[in-house]
Protein backbone atom coordinates (compact mmCIF):
# COMPACT_ATOMS: atom_id res chain seq x y z
CA UNK A 1 0.00 0.00 0.00
CA UNK A 2 1.24 3.49 -0.82
CA UNK A 3 2.69 5.22 2.18
CA UNK A 4 0.67 8.40 1.64
CA UNK A 5 -2.58 6.49 1.51
CA UNK A 6 -1.63 4.44 4.54
CA UNK A 7 -0.80 7.59 6.46
CA UNK A 8 -4.09 9.17 5.45
CA UNK A 9 -6.00 6.09 6.59
CA UNK A 10 -4.18 6.13 9.91
CA UNK A 11 -5.09 9.80 10.32
CA UNK A 12 -8.74 9.12 9.49
CA UNK A 13 -8.83 6.15 11.85
CA UNK A 14 -7.35 8.28 14.64
CA UNK A 15 -10.00 10.95 14.03
CA UNK A 16 -12.68 8.25 14.05
CA UNK A 17 -11.35 7.01 17.40
CA UNK A 18 -11.68 10.54 18.73
CA UNK A 19 -15.29 10.42 17.53
CA UNK A 20 -15.85 7.19 19.46
CA UNK A 21 -14.53 8.75 22.67
CA UNK A 22 -16.35 12.05 22.05
CA UNK A 23 -19.69 10.37 21.30
CA UNK A 24 -19.69 7.92 24.17
CA UNK A 25 -18.47 10.61 26.60
CA UNK A 26 -21.24 12.93 25.47
CA UNK A 27 -23.82 10.14 25.79
CA UNK A 28 -22.27 8.84 29.03
CA UNK A 29 -22.98 5.39 27.64
CA UNK A 30 -22.19 3.24 24.63
CA UNK A 31 -19.50 0.78 23.63
CA UNK A 32 -16.03 2.25 23.14
CA UNK A 33 -13.98 -0.97 23.45
CA UNK A 34 -15.31 -2.88 20.42
CA UNK A 35 -15.71 0.38 18.49
CA UNK A 36 -11.98 1.04 18.81
CA UNK A 37 -11.06 -2.50 17.77
CA UNK A 38 -13.06 -2.32 14.49
CA UNK A 39 -12.19 1.30 13.61
CA UNK A 40 -9.30 0.52 11.24
CA UNK A 41 -11.31 -1.99 9.22
CA UNK A 42 -14.25 0.42 8.93
CA UNK A 43 -11.92 3.23 7.89
CA UNK A 44 -10.42 1.06 5.17
CA UNK A 45 -13.87 -0.06 3.97
CA UNK A 46 -15.29 3.44 3.59
CA UNK A 47 -12.14 5.21 2.34
CA UNK A 48 -10.70 2.53 0.03
CA UNK A 49 -12.75 -0.57 -0.52
CA UNK A 50 -16.39 0.41 -0.86
CA UNK A 51 -17.99 2.12 -3.80
CA UNK A 52 -20.33 4.57 -2.04
CA UNK A 53 -21.59 8.08 -2.62
CA UNK A 54 -22.18 10.25 0.46
CA UNK A 55 -24.30 12.60 -1.66
CA UNK A 56 -26.55 9.71 -2.61
CA UNK A 57 -26.49 7.27 0.32
CA UNK A 58 -29.23 5.04 -1.16
CA UNK A 59 -27.61 4.83 -4.61
CA UNK A 60 -28.81 1.54 -6.03
CA UNK A 61 -25.45 0.19 -7.17
CA UNK A 62 -23.47 1.08 -4.06
CA UNK A 63 -21.55 -1.49 -2.11
CA UNK A 64 -23.39 -2.38 1.12
CA UNK A 65 -22.18 -2.65 4.68
CA UNK A 66 -24.01 -4.25 7.60
CA UNK A 67 -22.63 -3.73 11.08
CA UNK A 68 -23.68 -7.04 12.55
CA UNK A 69 -21.88 -6.07 15.77
CA UNK A 70 -24.28 -3.15 15.97
CA UNK A 71 -23.23 -1.96 19.41
CA UNK A 72 -20.04 -0.56 17.90
CA UNK A 73 -22.05 2.04 16.02
CA UNK A 74 -19.92 4.94 17.37
CA UNK A 75 -17.03 3.78 15.15
CA UNK A 76 -19.28 3.47 12.11
CA UNK A 77 -20.89 6.87 12.72
CA UNK A 78 -17.49 8.50 13.05
CA UNK A 79 -16.24 6.94 9.81
CA UNK A 80 -19.45 7.83 7.95
CA UNK A 81 -19.15 11.43 9.19
CA UNK A 82 -15.51 11.64 8.11
CA UNK A 83 -16.52 10.23 4.72
CA UNK A 84 -19.05 13.04 4.36
CA UNK A 85 -22.40 11.35 5.00
CA UNK A 86 -23.19 13.89 7.73
CA UNK A 87 -21.46 16.46 9.91
CA UNK A 88 -18.89 15.19 12.39
CA UNK A 89 -20.52 17.48 14.96
CA UNK A 90 -23.47 15.04 15.03
CA UNK A 91 -21.27 12.61 16.96
CA UNK A 92 -21.83 14.68 20.09
CA UNK A 93 -25.57 13.95 19.89
CA UNK A 94 -25.01 10.17 20.06
CA UNK A 95 -27.78 8.36 21.95
CA UNK A 96 -29.66 11.56 22.75
CA UNK A 97 -33.43 11.45 22.33
CA UNK A 98 -33.45 13.94 19.44
CA UNK A 99 -30.41 12.52 17.67
CA UNK A 100 -30.20 10.76 14.32
CA UNK A 101 -27.50 8.60 15.89
CA UNK A 102 -29.20 5.75 17.72
CA UNK A 103 -27.42 3.55 20.24
CA UNK A 104 -27.44 0.86 17.57
CA UNK A 105 -27.60 1.55 13.80
CA UNK A 106 -30.99 2.58 12.42
CA UNK A 107 -31.23 2.67 8.63
CA UNK A 108 -34.12 5.10 8.40
CA UNK A 109 -32.57 7.65 10.76
CA UNK A 110 -28.94 7.89 9.68
CA UNK A 111 -27.64 8.53 6.15
CA UNK A 112 -25.24 5.80 5.08
CA UNK A 113 -26.61 3.05 7.31
CA UNK A 114 -27.67 0.18 5.05
CA UNK A 115 -29.39 -1.96 7.68
CA UNK A 116 -30.71 -1.56 11.22
CA UNK A 117 -28.85 -3.87 13.54
CA UNK A 118 -28.11 -4.36 17.21
CA UNK A 119 -29.39 -7.82 18.02
CA UNK A 120 -26.29 -9.97 17.58
CA UNK A 121 -26.22 -12.68 14.94
CA UNK A 122 -28.82 -11.09 12.69
CA UNK A 123 -26.80 -8.68 10.58
CA UNK A 124 -24.82 -11.37 8.79
CA UNK A 125 -28.04 -13.02 7.56
CA UNK A 126 -29.21 -9.73 6.10
CA UNK A 127 -25.82 -9.20 4.44
CA UNK A 128 -26.15 -12.68 2.97
CA UNK A 129 -29.60 -11.76 1.63
CA UNK A 130 -28.20 -8.57 0.08
CA UNK A 131 -25.40 -10.53 -1.59
CA UNK A 132 -27.92 -13.06 -2.89
CA UNK A 133 -30.07 -10.19 -4.15
CA UNK A 134 -27.10 -8.73 -6.04
CA UNK A 135 -26.50 -12.06 -7.75
CA UNK A 136 -30.18 -12.46 -8.59
CA UNK A 137 -30.33 -8.98 -10.11
CA UNK A 138 -27.01 -9.41 -11.92
CA UNK A 139 -25.59 -6.42 -10.07
CA UNK A 140 -21.90 -6.27 -9.32
CA UNK A 141 -22.04 -4.49 -5.98
CA UNK A 142 -20.36 -6.22 -3.09
CA UNK A 143 -21.60 -6.71 0.46
CA UNK A 144 -19.56 -6.39 3.62
CA UNK A 145 -20.39 -7.16 7.21
CA UNK A 146 -18.51 -7.03 10.51
CA UNK A 147 -19.15 -9.37 13.41
CA UNK A 148 -17.82 -9.53 16.90
CA UNK A 149 -15.89 -12.64 17.91
CA UNK A 150 -18.30 -13.17 20.79
CA UNK A 151 -21.19 -12.64 18.38
CA UNK A 152 -20.30 -15.82 16.52
CA UNK A 153 -21.55 -17.74 19.55
CA UNK A 154 -25.01 -16.97 18.12
CA UNK A 155 -26.26 -20.00 16.19
CA UNK A 156 -27.75 -17.81 13.49
CA UNK A 157 -24.24 -16.81 12.39
CA UNK A 158 -23.60 -20.40 11.39
CA UNK A 159 -26.98 -20.74 9.70
CA UNK A 160 -25.97 -17.74 7.62
CA UNK A 161 -22.44 -19.08 7.05
CA UNK A 162 -23.83 -22.39 5.79
CA UNK A 163 -26.30 -20.67 3.46
CA UNK A 164 -23.76 -18.17 2.05
CA UNK A 165 -21.32 -20.88 1.01
CA UNK A 166 -24.10 -23.16 -0.27
CA UNK A 167 -25.16 -20.33 -2.57
CA UNK A 168 -21.57 -19.51 -3.57
CA UNK A 169 -21.79 -15.86 -2.54
CA UNK A 170 -18.33 -14.64 -3.57
CA UNK A 171 -19.62 -11.05 -3.43
CA UNK A 172 -19.78 -11.25 0.37
CA UNK A 173 -17.03 -10.53 2.90
CA UNK A 174 -17.51 -10.99 6.64
CA UNK A 175 -14.95 -9.52 9.01
CA UNK A 176 -14.67 -11.16 12.41
CA UNK A 177 -13.32 -8.61 14.88
CA UNK A 178 -11.27 -10.95 17.03
CA UNK A 179 -10.45 -8.87 20.11
CA UNK A 180 -10.94 -11.90 22.35
CA UNK A 181 -13.08 -10.08 24.90
CA UNK A 182 -16.80 -10.13 25.54
CA UNK A 183 -18.94 -8.77 28.36
CA UNK A 184 -18.41 -11.60 30.83
CA UNK A 185 -14.71 -12.18 30.15
CA UNK A 186 -12.38 -13.60 27.54
CA UNK A 187 -13.91 -15.78 24.85
CA UNK A 188 -12.37 -18.87 26.46
CA UNK A 189 -13.76 -17.96 29.87
CA UNK A 190 -17.27 -17.50 28.51
CA UNK A 191 -17.74 -20.09 25.75
CA UNK A 192 -14.88 -20.56 23.33
CA UNK A 193 -15.71 -20.26 19.62
CA UNK A 194 -12.08 -21.14 18.73
CA UNK A 195 -10.64 -22.16 16.36
CA UNK A 196 -12.42 -19.53 14.28
CA UNK A 197 -10.64 -19.86 10.90
CA UNK A 198 -11.13 -23.63 10.84
CA UNK A 199 -14.82 -23.24 11.60
CA UNK A 200 -15.40 -20.89 8.67
CA UNK A 201 -13.27 -23.11 6.43
CA UNK A 202 -15.37 -26.09 7.45
CA UNK A 203 -18.45 -24.08 6.47
CA UNK A 204 -16.98 -23.61 3.00
CA UNK A 205 -15.62 -20.09 3.29
CA UNK A 206 -12.40 -18.63 1.98
CA UNK A 207 -10.59 -17.54 5.15
CA UNK A 208 -7.94 -14.84 5.51
CA UNK A 209 -6.23 -14.07 8.80
CA UNK A 210 -4.95 -10.54 9.35
CA UNK A 211 -3.79 -8.01 11.88
CA UNK A 212 -6.91 -5.86 12.19
CA UNK A 213 -4.90 -2.72 12.87
CA UNK A 214 -2.37 -2.99 10.04
CA UNK A 215 -3.60 -1.28 6.88
CA UNK A 216 -1.23 -3.25 4.65
CA UNK A 217 -2.63 -6.45 6.05
CA UNK A 218 -6.24 -5.19 5.73
CA UNK A 219 -5.58 -3.98 2.19
CA UNK A 220 -4.18 -7.24 0.91
CA UNK A 221 -7.01 -9.23 2.55
CA UNK A 222 -9.78 -7.28 0.83
CA UNK A 223 -7.87 -7.38 -2.48
CA UNK A 224 -7.43 -11.15 -2.17
CA UNK A 225 -11.10 -11.59 -1.31
CA UNK A 226 -12.07 -9.96 -4.62
CA UNK A 227 -10.13 -12.61 -6.54
CA UNK A 228 -11.95 -15.53 -4.94
CA UNK A 229 -14.73 -17.05 -7.01
CA UNK A 230 -17.54 -19.27 -5.82
CA UNK A 231 -17.26 -18.79 -2.07
CA UNK A 232 -17.67 -16.04 0.50
CA UNK A 233 -14.66 -14.71 2.37
CA UNK A 234 -14.22 -14.46 6.12
CA UNK A 235 -11.49 -12.11 7.29
CA UNK A 236 -10.44 -13.00 10.80
CA UNK A 237 -9.02 -9.74 12.10
CA UNK A 238 -6.89 -10.12 15.21
CA UNK A 239 -7.54 -6.92 17.10
CA UNK A 240 -7.17 -5.13 20.38
CA UNK A 241 -10.27 -4.11 22.27
CA UNK A 242 -9.93 -0.42 23.15
CA UNK A 243 -7.15 0.06 20.54
CA UNK A 244 -5.55 3.51 20.61
CA UNK A 245 -6.41 4.49 24.17
CA UNK A 246 -3.84 3.07 26.58
CA UNK A 247 -6.07 2.41 29.55
CA UNK A 248 -8.79 0.81 27.42
CA UNK A 249 -6.56 -1.59 25.50
CA UNK A 250 -7.30 -5.25 26.23
CA UNK A 251 -9.49 -4.20 29.13
CA UNK A 252 -12.93 -5.80 28.96
CA UNK A 253 -14.43 -3.34 31.39
CA UNK A 254 -14.53 -0.80 28.55
CA UNK A 255 -16.95 -2.91 26.56
CA UNK A 256 -19.97 -0.84 27.42
CA UNK A 257 -18.87 2.08 29.56
CA UNK A 258 -18.20 5.75 28.85
CA UNK A 259 -15.26 7.78 30.17
CA UNK A 260 -15.61 10.25 33.01
CA UNK A 261 -14.21 13.77 32.50
CA UNK A 262 -10.71 12.87 33.61
CA UNK A 263 -10.58 9.71 31.50
CA UNK A 264 -12.05 11.61 28.57
CA UNK A 265 -9.25 14.20 28.76
CA UNK A 266 -6.61 11.51 28.94
CA UNK A 267 -8.05 9.51 26.05
CA UNK A 268 -8.45 12.58 23.85
CA UNK A 269 -4.92 13.78 24.68
CA UNK A 270 -3.48 10.41 23.72
CA UNK A 271 -5.37 10.42 20.43
CA UNK A 272 -4.42 14.05 19.75
CA UNK A 273 -0.77 13.14 20.28
CA UNK A 274 -1.12 10.19 17.92
CA UNK A 275 -2.76 12.46 15.38
CA UNK A 276 -0.08 15.12 15.53
CA UNK A 277 2.61 12.47 15.17
CA UNK A 278 0.80 11.12 12.09
CA UNK A 279 0.33 14.59 10.65
CA UNK A 280 3.92 15.67 11.33
Amino acid at each position, binding site marked *: MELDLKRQLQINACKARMGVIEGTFSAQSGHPGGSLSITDVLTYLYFVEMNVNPQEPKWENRDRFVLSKGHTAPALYSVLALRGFFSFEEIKTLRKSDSMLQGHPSMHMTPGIDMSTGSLG*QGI*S*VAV*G*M*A*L*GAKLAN*KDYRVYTALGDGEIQEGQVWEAAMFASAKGLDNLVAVIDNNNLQIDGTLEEVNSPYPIPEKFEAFGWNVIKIDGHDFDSIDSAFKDAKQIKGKPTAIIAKSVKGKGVSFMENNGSWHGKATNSEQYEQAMNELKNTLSELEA
Partner: protein
Amino acid sequence: MAEVIKAATRDGYGDALLELGKTNDKVVVMDADLAGATKTGVFKKAYPDKFFNAGIAEGNLMGVAAGLSLSGYTVFASSFAMFAAGRAFEQVRNSIGYPHLNVKVAATHAGISVGEDGASHQCCEDIALMRTIPGMVIINPADDVEAKAATIAASEYDGPVYLRFGRLAVPRIFDQNTYKFEWGKGKKIRDGIDVTIVATGLMVNEALTAAEMLEVEGVSARVINIHTIKPLDKDIIMEAAYETGAIVTAEEHNVIGGLGGAVSELVCEKFPVPVLKVGVNDTFGRSGPAKELLGIYGLDCKHIAEKAKQAIAFKIVPQIKN
Protein backbone atom coordinates in the same frame (compact mmCIF):
# COMPACT_ATOMS: atom_id res chain seq x y z
CA MET B 1 -77.69 -27.82 -3.33
CA ALA B 2 -74.38 -27.00 -4.92
CA GLU B 3 -71.51 -29.18 -3.85
CA VAL B 4 -69.28 -27.50 -1.27
CA ILE B 5 -65.72 -27.09 -2.50
CA LYS B 6 -63.12 -27.69 0.17
CA ALA B 7 -59.57 -26.36 0.05
CA ALA B 8 -56.95 -25.25 2.54
CA THR B 9 -55.96 -21.60 2.72
CA ARG B 10 -52.38 -22.69 2.05
CA ASP B 11 -53.59 -23.86 -1.37
CA GLY B 12 -54.81 -20.36 -2.11
CA TYR B 13 -51.38 -19.10 -1.11
CA GLY B 14 -49.67 -21.49 -3.54
CA ASP B 15 -52.07 -20.45 -6.34
CA ALA B 16 -51.30 -16.81 -5.70
CA LEU B 17 -47.55 -17.35 -5.75
CA LEU B 18 -47.85 -19.11 -9.08
CA GLU B 19 -49.77 -16.16 -10.46
CA LEU B 20 -47.30 -13.65 -9.01
CA GLY B 21 -44.47 -15.54 -10.66
CA LYS B 22 -46.07 -14.64 -13.98
CA THR B 23 -47.08 -11.08 -13.23
CA ASN B 24 -44.47 -9.67 -10.87
CA ASP B 25 -40.78 -10.20 -11.60
CA LYS B 26 -39.83 -8.73 -8.22
CA VAL B 27 -41.42 -11.58 -6.27
CA VAL B 28 -38.99 -13.99 -4.64
CA VAL B 29 -40.02 -16.90 -2.43
CA MET B 30 -38.14 -18.55 0.41
CA ASP B 31 -38.85 -21.55 2.57
CA ALA B 32 -37.28 -23.51 5.41
CA ASP B 33 -37.49 -27.10 4.17
CA LEU B 34 -41.28 -27.20 4.14
CA ALA B 35 -41.95 -26.20 0.55
CA GLY B 36 -44.28 -29.12 -0.08
CA ALA B 37 -46.37 -28.43 2.99
CA THR B 38 -46.44 -24.62 2.77
CA LYS B 39 -47.22 -24.78 -0.97
CA THR B 40 -44.23 -22.62 -1.90
CA GLY B 41 -43.15 -25.78 -3.73
CA VAL B 42 -45.65 -24.88 -6.45
CA PHE B 43 -43.70 -21.67 -7.08
CA LYS B 44 -40.36 -23.43 -6.75
CA LYS B 45 -41.28 -25.84 -9.53
CA ALA B 46 -42.36 -23.10 -11.91
CA TYR B 47 -39.73 -20.48 -11.00
CA PRO B 48 -36.70 -22.30 -9.57
CA ASP B 49 -34.42 -19.26 -10.06
CA LYS B 50 -36.64 -17.11 -7.82
CA PHE B 51 -36.92 -19.65 -5.02
CA PHE B 52 -34.41 -20.08 -2.19
CA ASN B 53 -34.48 -22.74 0.47
CA ALA B 54 -32.88 -21.73 3.76
CA GLY B 55 -33.08 -25.26 5.05
CA ILE B 56 -34.12 -25.85 8.64
CA ALA B 57 -32.94 -22.45 9.84
CA GLU B 58 -35.82 -20.04 10.35
CA GLY B 59 -33.79 -17.27 11.96
CA ASN B 60 -31.52 -17.04 8.93
CA LEU B 61 -34.56 -17.40 6.64
CA MET B 62 -35.97 -14.14 7.97
CA GLY B 63 -32.63 -12.34 7.81
CA VAL B 64 -31.91 -13.40 4.24
CA ALA B 65 -35.46 -12.42 3.29
CA ALA B 66 -34.77 -8.99 4.80
CA GLY B 67 -31.56 -8.67 2.79
CA LEU B 68 -33.30 -9.68 -0.43
CA SER B 69 -35.98 -7.07 0.17
CA LEU B 70 -33.20 -4.48 0.56
CA SER B 71 -32.08 -5.46 -2.94
CA GLY B 72 -35.49 -4.44 -4.26
CA TYR B 73 -37.37 -7.71 -4.09
CA THR B 74 -40.79 -8.52 -2.66
CA VAL B 75 -40.04 -11.54 -0.55
CA PHE B 76 -42.41 -14.22 0.68
CA ALA B 77 -40.75 -16.20 3.50
CA SER B 78 -42.58 -19.34 4.54
CA SER B 79 -42.52 -21.90 7.28
CA PHE B 80 -45.03 -23.26 9.75
CA ALA B 81 -46.55 -20.59 12.01
CA MET B 82 -44.84 -22.12 15.02
CA PHE B 83 -41.40 -21.50 13.54
CA ALA B 84 -42.06 -18.37 11.47
CA ALA B 85 -43.74 -16.41 14.24
CA GLY B 86 -42.42 -18.41 17.17
CA ARG B 87 -38.86 -19.54 16.57
CA ALA B 88 -38.01 -16.54 14.43
CA PHE B 89 -39.99 -13.97 16.40
CA GLU B 90 -37.01 -11.82 17.20
CA GLN B 91 -35.65 -11.93 13.67
CA VAL B 92 -39.06 -10.88 12.38
CA ARG B 93 -39.15 -8.14 14.99
CA ASN B 94 -35.65 -6.77 14.56
CA SER B 95 -34.63 -7.61 10.99
CA ILE B 96 -38.03 -7.10 9.30
CA GLY B 97 -40.42 -5.18 11.58
CA TYR B 98 -38.09 -2.53 12.99
CA PRO B 99 -36.66 -1.51 9.59
CA HIS B 100 -40.19 -1.96 8.09
CA LEU B 101 -38.96 -4.08 5.20
CA ASN B 102 -40.96 -5.49 2.33
CA VAL B 103 -41.09 -9.08 3.57
CA LYS B 104 -44.24 -11.17 3.74
CA VAL B 105 -43.94 -13.74 6.50
CA ALA B 106 -46.30 -16.33 5.10
CA ALA B 107 -46.96 -18.93 7.76
CA THR B 108 -48.95 -22.07 7.22
CA HIS B 109 -50.14 -24.79 9.61
CA ALA B 110 -51.41 -22.22 12.09
CA GLY B 111 -53.71 -23.25 14.90
CA ILE B 112 -55.02 -26.47 16.34
CA SER B 113 -56.20 -27.82 12.97
CA VAL B 114 -52.65 -28.98 12.27
CA GLY B 115 -54.10 -32.11 13.80
CA GLU B 116 -52.09 -35.25 14.41
CA ASP B 117 -48.68 -33.56 14.76
CA GLY B 118 -49.84 -32.32 18.13
CA ALA B 119 -49.08 -29.45 20.49
CA SER B 120 -45.47 -28.80 19.47
CA HIS B 121 -46.68 -27.82 15.99
CA GLN B 122 -50.07 -26.26 16.83
CA CYS B 123 -49.32 -22.56 17.00
CA CYS B 124 -52.03 -20.61 18.75
CA GLU B 125 -49.79 -17.74 19.79
CA ASP B 126 -48.73 -16.26 16.45
CA ILE B 127 -51.38 -13.55 16.10
CA ALA B 128 -50.57 -12.31 19.60
CA LEU B 129 -46.85 -12.26 18.88
CA MET B 130 -47.18 -10.54 15.53
CA ARG B 131 -49.72 -7.99 16.81
CA THR B 132 -47.16 -6.56 19.20
CA ILE B 133 -44.74 -5.64 16.41
CA PRO B 134 -45.31 -2.00 15.39
CA GLY B 135 -46.31 -1.63 11.74
CA MET B 136 -46.90 -5.33 11.16
CA VAL B 137 -49.99 -6.13 9.08
CA ILE B 138 -51.72 -9.42 9.99
CA ILE B 139 -54.00 -11.21 7.57
CA ASN B 140 -55.83 -14.43 8.41
CA PRO B 141 -58.02 -15.49 5.45
CA ALA B 142 -61.20 -17.55 5.80
CA ASP B 143 -60.95 -19.71 2.70
CA ASP B 144 -58.68 -20.39 -0.25
CA VAL B 145 -60.27 -17.70 -2.41
CA GLU B 146 -59.60 -15.08 0.22
CA ALA B 147 -56.11 -16.49 0.82
CA LYS B 148 -55.19 -16.10 -2.83
CA ALA B 149 -56.55 -12.57 -3.00
CA ALA B 150 -54.84 -11.62 0.26
CA THR B 151 -51.49 -12.89 -0.97
CA ILE B 152 -51.73 -10.85 -4.15
CA ALA B 153 -52.82 -7.79 -2.16
CA ALA B 154 -49.85 -8.28 0.18
CA SER B 155 -47.49 -8.30 -2.80
CA GLU B 156 -48.80 -4.86 -3.78
CA TYR B 157 -48.18 -3.41 -0.32
CA ASP B 158 -44.73 -2.10 0.56
CA GLY B 159 -44.01 -3.28 4.10
CA PRO B 160 -44.04 -6.25 6.46
CA VAL B 161 -47.08 -8.52 6.45
CA TYR B 162 -47.84 -11.67 8.43
CA LEU B 163 -50.02 -14.01 6.38
CA ARG B 164 -51.64 -16.81 8.36
CA PHE B 165 -52.73 -19.94 6.58
CA GLY B 166 -54.09 -23.32 7.64
CA ARG B 167 -53.34 -26.91 6.79
CA LEU B 168 -56.89 -28.22 6.88
CA ALA B 169 -59.15 -28.18 3.83
CA VAL B 170 -62.12 -25.99 4.77
CA PRO B 171 -65.34 -25.15 2.93
CA ARG B 172 -64.98 -22.44 0.31
CA ILE B 173 -67.16 -19.50 1.32
CA PHE B 174 -66.44 -16.92 -1.35
CA ASP B 175 -66.96 -16.91 -5.10
CA GLN B 176 -63.63 -16.64 -6.83
CA ASN B 177 -65.21 -14.76 -9.72
CA THR B 178 -66.65 -11.96 -7.64
CA TYR B 179 -64.56 -11.87 -4.45
CA LYS B 180 -62.69 -8.60 -3.88
CA PHE B 181 -60.09 -8.29 -1.14
CA GLU B 182 -60.28 -4.94 0.61
CA TRP B 183 -57.08 -4.16 2.50
CA GLY B 184 -57.79 -3.61 6.19
CA LYS B 185 -61.54 -3.87 5.81
CA GLY B 186 -63.86 -6.18 7.69
CA LYS B 187 -66.90 -7.45 5.83
CA LYS B 188 -70.42 -7.92 7.10
CA ILE B 189 -71.34 -11.25 5.54
CA ARG B 190 -74.65 -11.69 7.36
CA ASP B 191 -76.79 -9.04 8.95
CA GLY B 192 -78.35 -9.27 12.37
CA ILE B 193 -79.42 -7.09 15.28
CA ASP B 194 -79.12 -9.06 18.54
CA VAL B 195 -75.46 -9.96 18.59
CA THR B 196 -72.42 -9.79 16.31
CA ILE B 197 -70.06 -12.67 15.69
CA VAL B 198 -66.66 -11.32 14.66
CA ALA B 199 -64.74 -14.21 13.15
CA THR B 200 -61.47 -14.86 11.38
CA GLY B 201 -59.93 -17.75 9.46
CA LEU B 202 -61.71 -21.08 9.46
CA MET B 203 -64.02 -19.82 12.21
CA VAL B 204 -65.83 -17.60 9.69
CA ASN B 205 -67.60 -20.60 8.22
CA GLU B 206 -68.46 -21.85 11.72
CA ALA B 207 -69.82 -18.40 12.55
CA LEU B 208 -72.14 -18.49 9.55
CA THR B 209 -73.45 -21.88 10.64
CA ALA B 210 -73.84 -20.62 14.20
CA ALA B 211 -75.89 -17.68 12.92
CA GLU B 212 -78.20 -20.08 11.11
CA MET B 213 -78.60 -22.15 14.28
CA LEU B 214 -79.37 -19.00 16.26
CA GLU B 215 -81.96 -17.89 13.73
CA VAL B 216 -83.92 -21.08 14.37
CA GLU B 217 -84.01 -20.04 18.03
CA GLY B 218 -85.18 -16.57 17.12
CA VAL B 219 -81.84 -14.84 17.60
CA SER B 220 -80.63 -12.49 14.91
CA ALA B 221 -76.85 -12.68 14.67
CA ARG B 222 -74.65 -10.51 12.52
CA VAL B 223 -71.47 -12.08 11.16
CA ILE B 224 -68.38 -10.06 10.34
CA ASN B 225 -65.37 -11.55 8.59
CA ILE B 226 -62.13 -9.99 9.77
CA HIS B 227 -59.31 -11.09 7.48
CA THR B 228 -57.07 -8.19 8.45
CA ILE B 229 -56.55 -8.43 12.20
CA LYS B 230 -54.04 -5.59 12.16
CA PRO B 231 -54.77 -2.86 11.35
CA LEU B 232 -58.24 -3.71 12.63
CA ASP B 233 -61.28 -2.26 10.87
CA LYS B 234 -62.43 -0.20 13.85
CA ASP B 235 -65.47 1.24 12.13
CA ILE B 236 -67.15 -2.07 11.40
CA ILE B 237 -66.49 -3.33 14.94
CA MET B 238 -67.79 -0.17 16.60
CA GLU B 239 -70.83 -0.15 14.36
CA ALA B 240 -71.53 -3.69 15.57
CA ALA B 241 -71.07 -2.63 19.18
CA TYR B 242 -73.47 0.30 18.80
CA GLU B 243 -76.05 -1.54 16.77
CA THR B 244 -76.11 -5.01 18.30
CA GLY B 245 -74.75 -4.32 21.81
CA ALA B 246 -73.00 -7.69 22.19
CA ILE B 247 -70.06 -9.30 20.45
CA VAL B 248 -68.60 -12.77 20.23
CA THR B 249 -65.19 -13.21 18.66
CA ALA B 250 -64.19 -16.50 17.06
CA GLU B 251 -60.66 -17.50 16.11
CA GLU B 252 -58.43 -20.55 15.94
CA HIS B 253 -55.93 -19.02 18.33
CA ASN B 254 -55.40 -18.54 22.03
CA VAL B 255 -58.12 -16.34 23.53
CA ILE B 256 -55.24 -14.18 24.78
CA GLY B 257 -53.87 -11.61 22.40
CA GLY B 258 -55.57 -12.52 19.15
CA LEU B 259 -58.69 -11.22 17.42
CA GLY B 260 -60.63 -11.39 20.68
CA GLY B 261 -57.96 -9.35 22.38
CA ALA B 262 -57.91 -6.79 19.59
CA VAL B 263 -61.71 -6.39 19.56
CA SER B 264 -61.87 -6.20 23.37
CA GLU B 265 -59.16 -3.54 23.50
CA LEU B 266 -61.06 -1.43 21.01
CA VAL B 267 -64.57 -1.86 22.40
CA CYS B 268 -63.50 -1.33 26.02
CA GLU B 269 -62.12 2.07 25.18
CA LYS B 270 -64.86 3.32 22.85
CA PHE B 271 -68.19 1.85 23.94
CA PRO B 272 -68.04 -1.10 26.32
CA VAL B 273 -70.41 -3.92 25.46
CA PRO B 274 -69.95 -7.59 26.32
CA VAL B 275 -67.22 -9.21 24.22
CA LEU B 276 -67.06 -12.98 24.68
CA LYS B 277 -64.29 -14.97 23.11
CA VAL B 278 -64.32 -18.28 21.33
CA GLY B 279 -60.81 -19.58 20.88
CA VAL B 280 -58.28 -21.94 22.36
CA ASN B 281 -58.70 -21.40 26.07
CA ASP B 282 -55.07 -20.74 27.06
CA THR B 283 -54.04 -24.35 26.78
CA PHE B 284 -51.78 -26.45 24.58
CA GLY B 285 -53.27 -28.73 21.96
CA ARG B 286 -52.83 -32.46 21.42
CA SER B 287 -52.70 -35.01 18.63
CA GLY B 288 -55.86 -36.03 16.85
CA PRO B 289 -57.82 -35.56 13.64
CA ALA B 290 -58.22 -31.83 12.99
CA LYS B 291 -62.02 -31.91 12.89
CA GLU B 292 -62.18 -33.72 16.20
CA LEU B 293 -59.74 -31.33 17.81
CA LEU B 294 -61.74 -28.31 16.70
CA GLY B 295 -64.70 -29.83 18.56
CA ILE B 296 -62.66 -30.75 21.64
CA TYR B 297 -61.30 -27.22 21.94
CA GLY B 298 -64.66 -25.59 21.35
CA LEU B 299 -63.81 -24.13 17.97
CA ASP B 300 -67.15 -24.83 16.32
CA CYS B 301 -70.56 -23.41 15.49
CA LYS B 302 -72.19 -24.94 18.56
CA HIS B 303 -69.83 -23.19 20.91
CA ILE B 304 -70.15 -19.90 19.05
CA ALA B 305 -73.95 -20.08 19.27
CA GLU B 306 -73.79 -20.74 23.03
CA LYS B 307 -71.44 -17.81 23.56
CA ALA B 308 -73.70 -15.60 21.46
CA LYS B 309 -76.64 -16.30 23.75
CA GLN B 310 -74.47 -15.64 26.80
CA ALA B 311 -73.31 -12.36 25.30
CA ILE B 312 -76.89 -11.28 24.74
CA ALA B 313 -77.72 -12.15 28.36
CA PHE B 314 -74.82 -9.97 29.48
CA LYS B 315 -76.27 -6.86 27.90
CA ILE B 316 -77.00 -4.76 30.96
CA VAL B 317 -77.84 -1.39 29.53
CA PRO B 318 -80.14 -0.47 26.65
CA GLN B 319 -78.12 -0.29 23.46
CA ILE B 320 -78.46 2.03 20.54
CA LYS B 321 -80.27 0.24 17.79
CA ASN B 322 -81.37 1.28 14.36
